[in-house]
């Protein structure tokens, strides 16, 4: 996903994508991030215990923890709530 997103949208995207173990390159490609900002986002999520690293041979993989589920669920409900009212735009 590309375009102007908020940090929360980027966190959500990383966490959803990392439900299955992912490499750093796969994450930054998928989330359209550069290496530096990608590293910062991942470090933040690791510190908050929403993401953990696993070793797959010589490769490091990132995977979401059960604690991330709370954030993912809240995020989804807030964004879907935007459409609770009748569509504001229709022909």
């Amino acid at each position: 996903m590309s375009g102007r997103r908020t940090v929360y949208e980027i966190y959500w995207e990383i966490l959803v994508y990392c439900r299955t173990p992912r490499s750093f390159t796969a994450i930054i490609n998928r989330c359209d991030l550069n290496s530096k900002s990608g590293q910062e986002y991942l470090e933040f999520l690791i510190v908050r215990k929403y993401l953990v690293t696993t070793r797959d041979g010589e490769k490091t993989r990132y995977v979401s923890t059960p604690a991330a589920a709370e954030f993912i669920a809240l995020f989804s409900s807030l964004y879907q709530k935007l459409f609770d009212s009748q569509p504001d735009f229709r022909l």
Partner: protein
Amino acid sequence: MNEQTLDRFRTEIRHFYLVSLLNLVFAALAIAFGVSSIVTAILGQAAYPAIPGLRVLTGAIALICSGLGISWVVSTVRVFGGVEAIRDDLEAAGERITDDGITCLIVRMLAHYRDNRRIINTMILVCTLGGCGFFMLGLLNSLKALPFSPDGFGITTDNLLAIPAMLLTLGIALASLLSSYYFSRFAKAWDRRLHEIEESECALKKTLGLDES
């Protein structure tokens, strides 16, 4: 997954896709008609003996309308491209779309709107100006249809041929003004959503443990 959310989101995207597509068609028509009016005015194929200077005025307005038409197309293509990609993914997912899938498309639409907010506001202005310009061009063309001649009144074939051109110009003017109206409504709806998202960020902050208060 909330079916209502999916239905409403899908309806909005489909309708906005249609508005963007119609915009593209009418913007192309606007350029074509503007260029043809310029050529007609320059070559002087249309004579306006009853109103001197009308040819120059029509040419000038046609030139402005063509410029606005080009600007209209360029702006529409960018907005249309993003909406088309989202609509295609939404249609491809069908009813089996997951909760994350629908949230992902909503986030994409919000990101697309943030990226193109300024363009959409410009389009509202360009469509309004284009609509007014084409309305004037339609009025000026309609003068051709009036049975004026140096010898008095008389309906000629040329007068009758001017009627479809006049109707086409007025049609483009109407489409342009309608586009402006729909883009305003679209911008209003998504601005409200951006505002709601900003307000709900407190809850996300709290969950992430970023809320220090």
